[in-house]
Structure formats: structure tokens, C-alpha cells
């Protein structure tokens, strides 16, 4: 407890305002102070030696970081940052060839993938597809309309459980269940939104969170209906013309097909009268309503439309896993889906899809450091909010026009 840390504590007391302040002031003692502070916070959890190690790492690492922030490198840095996303993707997309062939090319790659990849990668791809649908759905609510929803996994669960129950109790197949699952999710979205939309901002977020938790606890405890924490197993995969789509390759095409339907639908809806009304509500609700937009009605549309896709994702998940349990639909799941939308850029369809793929593929790629995954996600969210709150693919136009005002 004592020893190495005592001295820095004394220093802290003499300059309490120096900790974690703005980065501009660059006193030479700052790295030592920050390192001492971090080590002190870390000390009770792991003991003296790890805390000392942390101290040394930060003392050594911070000046290196600050060097990168030096004015002489600023010009280079911004140039590098600008060219980084631009170089491989944007140059291609903005070229004549890229503009006409980027999407077909992507499409062909997606079609050919199953012939080149092992089952393990196919599994990751199928999960990516399901999360793309979830992210697209949540994007309608949070990204287009600006309503924060922290219980989106609940609608995912409703889609999955609807199919699981219809299939195991009534013997209903995948195709007739598909509209029912999506409909059940959309209906519950409407039922929640109807009273909840009277609330604004954070309160709405908390109500959706509460709804998600209530649903999960009920699924967990209603043993006679949902089989409680043991979940429901023995769900059948979809059949098409008598052929089971249960193998990963076929299932991949099914998910791909639905994603390829969802994206243009999203695009069209976004550009439609409804989509523009959503954007108006998001930008300024009072102004929108004074322009004659029935804000409550359009918010209801957003909830129903967004949760509809969660229902579809739910049935795809249930049919893929052939098993559902409440464990798959926790608050962390909702946060994960929200992170996908935010990572990609709120309100950006391709962004949401890209965010979903990144957040499914990245943890798989980081398997060795699996236990640190959530830790990294937490830090990542904070850093993303501080350094790039608009997400990877942002809606620059809107941000710019706002700045001019």
C-alpha cells in the first residue's frame, strides 16, 4: 500500500487541478502525475507490483503520445487521417469505375464467399448478417428518428421466441412464422411506444431499458410457457421446396437475401415522405410539428418499422441456433446493437451495416484476448464519443449545414 505510491500522492495534493485537465498544458510532470493517479486507482485491485508496472507503462507511454500531438506533426497527422479512409475506399468509390461497379462487385464477392470459406467463417458471416438486420432496425429508431432505445434486444427476443413457440408447440414452419414473428415484434414495438412516446430523451431510453429487462425476467421465470432459463430447443430450420436450409451455406444465402432486400427498402423508406419526417423530428421536434408533421404518429411508425426488422433477425437467429434462451437477449445485447449503429454513424444505413459486421467479426478475430473483449468495447465507446461521435461513416452534410447556422 505504501512505498512507491506515497510520494506521488503528496504531489497530487499540491496540484489537485492538474489531473486529467486539458491536454494543452504540457508541464513535464504531467505524465508522472497521471501515471501515479492511475496506479493509485489500480493498486487495491491487483496489488503493488501490477500497479507499479502500470505506472511505468504510462510514464513511458504518455510522452510518446504527446509527441504525436506536437504541432509539427499536426499537418502530417490530419493529412494521414484524411487519406486513411479515403485511400482504399473513397478513391475507389469516387472513381468512375468504382461508382458503377462497387456494388455489383461487393455483391459478387458476397455470392462467391461460401465456396471459399470454412464453416467457422460462414458461421461468423451468418451472425454478421443477423446483426446487420438488427442494426438496420435500430438505426431507424435511433439514427433516423433520434429516439434512444436501450431495450432493442427485447424485440429480437420476441421475434425469436415467437418462432420457437409456434414451431415447437404448434408445428408451424419457418415461412408462415416469418411474417408472424416480424409482426409480433412490430406489434410489441407499437404497444411499448404508444405510452412511452410521451416521454423524451433519456426517460424514453430508460423505459425501453425497463421493458427489455421485464421481458427477459419474465422469459426467465415463466417456466411452463418458455421453459425458463433452460430455453427452448428442437426448433426446425427452414425448408424450401422440401430441401432443408439448415446447412450453413444455404442459410447464408437466406440471410444474404433478406439483407439484400432490407438495404434497398431502408434506402427507399429513408428518402420517402416518412423518412424525411423522421429526419425533421430528429433535427428539431418542435419545428417539425409546427411544419405540420404529426410527430407522435411518425415516431410510432419508426418504432414499428424498426422493431419489425428485429423480429426478422429474431426468427433467423432462432432457426439458425435451433435453440433460444433468455441469456441471448440481455441488456448487453441491446448495448452491443446500439454500439454497432453508433460505430457506423447514426442514421447511415451502410454505416449501421458496417458497424454490425465490424463488431461481430472483430471479437472473433480477437479470440486470444477474448476476456478483454468487453473491456475494449467499453473503452472504445468512450473514445468513440470523444474523438469521433459521428461514427465511422457520418452524415457530413447535415453536420456541416448545422455548423453554418
Amino acid at each position, binding site marked *: 500500500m505504501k512505498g512507491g505510491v506515497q510520494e506521488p500522492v503528496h504531489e497530487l495534493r499540491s496540484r489537485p487541478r492538474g489531473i486529467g*485537465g486539458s491536454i494543452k498544458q504540457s508541464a513535464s510532470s504531467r505524465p508522472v502525475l497521471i501515471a501515479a*493517479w492511475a496506479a493509485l486507482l489500480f493498486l487495491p*485491485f491487483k496489488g503493488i507490483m501490477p500497479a507499479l508496472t502500470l505506472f511505468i507503462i504510462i510514464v513511458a507511454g504518455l510522452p510518446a503520445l504527446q509527441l504525436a500531438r506536437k504541432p509539427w506533426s499536426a499537418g502530417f497527422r490530419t493529412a494521414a487521417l484524411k487519406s486513411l479512409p479515403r485511400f482504399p475506399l473513397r478513391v475507389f468509390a469516387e472513381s468512375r469505375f468504382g461508382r458503377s461497379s462497387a456494388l455489383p462487385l461487393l455483391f459478387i464477392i458476397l455470392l462467391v464467399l461460401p465456396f471459399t470459406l470454412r464453416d467457422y467463417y460462414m458461421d461468423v458471416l451468418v451472425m454478421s448478417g443477423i446483426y446487420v438486420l438488427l442494426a438496420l432496425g435500430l438505426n431507424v429508431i435511433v439514427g433516423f428518428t433520434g429516439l*434512444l432505445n436501450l431495450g432493442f434486444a427485447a424485440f429480437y427476443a420476441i421475434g425469436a421466441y415467437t418462432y420457437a413457440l409456434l414451431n415447437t408447440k404448434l408445428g408451424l414452419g419457418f415461412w408462415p412464422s416469418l411474417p408472424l414473428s416480424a409482426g409480433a415484434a412490430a406489434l410489441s414495438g407499437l404497444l411499448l411506444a404508444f405510452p412511452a412516446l410521451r416521454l423524451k430523451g433519456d426517460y424514453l431510453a430508460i423505459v425501453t431499458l*425497463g421493458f427489455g429487462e*421485464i421481458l427477459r425476467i419474465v422469459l426467465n421465470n415463466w417456466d411452463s410457457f418458455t421453459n425458463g432459463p433452460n430455453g427452448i430447443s428442437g426448433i426446425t430450420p427452414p425448408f424450401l421446396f422440401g430441401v432443408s436450409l439448415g446447412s450453413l451455406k444455404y442459410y447464408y444465402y437466406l440471410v444474404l437475401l433478406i439483407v439484400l432486400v432490407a438495404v434497398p427498402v431502408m434506402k427507399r423508406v429513408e428518402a420517402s415522405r416518412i423518412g424525411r419526417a423522421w429526419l425533421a423530428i430528429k433535427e428539431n421536434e418542435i419545428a417539425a410539428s409546427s411544419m405540420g408533421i404529426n410527430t407522435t404518429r411518425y415516431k410510432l411508425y419508426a418504432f414499428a418499422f424498426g422493431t419489425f426488422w428485429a423480429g426478422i433477425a429474431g426468427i433467423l437467429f432462432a432457426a439458425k441456433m435451433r435453440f433460444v434462451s433468455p441469456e441471448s437477449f440481455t441488456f448487453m445485447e441491446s448495448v452491443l446493437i446500439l454500439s454497432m449503429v453508433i460505430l457506423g454513424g447514426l442514421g447511415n444505413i451502410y454505416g449501421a451495416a458496417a458497424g454490425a459486421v465490424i463488431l461481430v467479426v472483430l471479437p472473433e478475430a480477437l479470440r486470444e484476448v477474448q476476456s478483454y473483449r468487453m473491456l475494449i468495447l467499453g473503452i472504445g*465507446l*468512450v473514445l468513440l464519443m*470523444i474523438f469521433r461521435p459521428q461514427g465511422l461513416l457520418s452524415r457530413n452534410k447535415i453536420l456541416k449545414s448545422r455548423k453554418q447556422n
Partner: protein
Amino acid sequence: MLLQQLINGLTLGSVYAIIALGYTMVYGILELINFAHGEIYMLGAYLGIIFLGIFTAMGLTAANFPLALILTVLITVFFCSAYGFTMEKVAYKPLRNAPRLSPLISAIGVSIFLQNYVMLTQGATDKVFPYRYGEAHVHFLNVEMTYLQVMIIATSALLMLALHLFRKTRMGKAMRATAQDKTMAALVGINVDGIISLTFVIGAGLAAVAGIMVASYYGIVNYFIGYVAGIKAFTAAVLGGIGSIPGAMLGGILLGLIESLGAAYISSEYKDVYAFVMLLIILLIRPSGILGRHTEEKV
């Protein structure tokens, strides 16, 4: 039976109230739902166990338990306040002028980080409180109250009283002024950043005490207790009217009573649901809470 449940509910409720104070104070000043506040409470529970464990190993607990406990509480409060202070500086201060979604997401990020930080450093298994309180209890009106329960309720009442008195001091006035209008507060010479830090420090300190109380009450602690307790305390804050300090106290105690009565008379499996159902009902009927003031949105 009913009276016994009321006592249990009061014990639980006073803990919720203490955590809810942190939520309500931060919300009053920053209009931010500090999602990570529940994790500070969890840190408090862990740190309490760690330091009491150290004192037990040193033999202090056996020799003089009250001294060991007081030292534990003081050190834990210091560390939790330090965590609260750091959290504000790192994750919320850079976002003070950002859209409202940003700090909320950042808070969720901090919450995820702290949960996993504790899981990775302390292990995913349950931690046991290193001291067993005796079964000694006081009797009155057919009710048995263990000394621990008396202590929890008394400590909570004392802390609430202290906070109430603090609000009358110079610092407390500055805090209330900052909550009303940050720009005006800065104009009359209040160090707004300092006051915001102070709010986080006080809130975290209170949560630390709540953490130790719960750790000693249940005897077992896990790294995910912060999430549920945080949501419940937030419910309590909303119930009483967020931003209002008496409201948080009232809301916390009400919530504790509802929960223990619901668990006793309806079903204990759905214990956690009552809080959420309560939250939904309150928000839908009276979003400003019992003691909260209704604010009209300005154009």
C-alpha cells in the same frame, strides 16, 4: 410479519436512497444519467471486502472491529471518490457540450469497462464479506431487527442529514446555483468545473458507503451487482423526482418497501420486476416524479 417486511424494506430502501442521491445530484447538474454510478457502488462493495480482508489478515478486525470497519469505510470512500472524479474528467468532461446522446453512451462505456475491469482483476466468482455479523438483534413491537439493520438505517439517515446540512453551506449553495444555471453560476464567480467534480466525488462517496453496507448485509458480492442496483437506484431517483434530493430519499425508501412487500406477498422470483414496473408506471403517469417539478420545454 407485515411489520417485519417493512423493516426489511426500510433497510433495503435506505441503501437505494443513498445510491439514488448520487444519480439525482449528477442529473441535477449535468442532466446526465450517470449509468456508471451503479458500478461505483459495486467498486465500493469490492473495495470494502478487499480492505477489510487486509485488516483481518493484519489481525485488526479481531482486535478492534469498529476501528477496522471505520478505516475500511474511510479508505473505500476515498478510492470510490477518486474513481468518480476520474470518471467525470475522462469520460464526461470532454463531452460537456456534445449532443445529449454522447455522454449517455460514454457512461454506458464506462459502466461496461468498470464491470469487466473488476471481473478481470478480481475474478468472476462471488466474493465473500470477510466478517460475519452476529445474529444479535433488538426487539420492539414483535419485530426483530438485527444490529446490522439498525446500523444501515442509522448510517443512511445520518448521511442524508449530512447532505442536507451540506446544501446549506457555501459549497452547497454554489452547487445548487450551478444546477440552476451553469453560465450564471460561472458569472458570479463559482468554479463550475470544480463544483461538478465535487458532485461526482460526493455521489461516489455515498455509493461507496452503500456498497459496503450491502456487502455486509448480503455477505456476498459479484461484479454485476452494480447494474441492477444502479437501475433500481435510478428508478428511486425518478420515482421521487429526478434532480430533487428529498425526492431521491423518499423514492429509495418507497422502492425498498415495494420490493420487499412484493417479494413477500406476490412472488420473490419477480423481485427485480417490481422496480421496473414501478418505473414504467411512474414515468407514464407522472414523469416528473413525486416531488419533482414539471419543466416546460423551451423553443
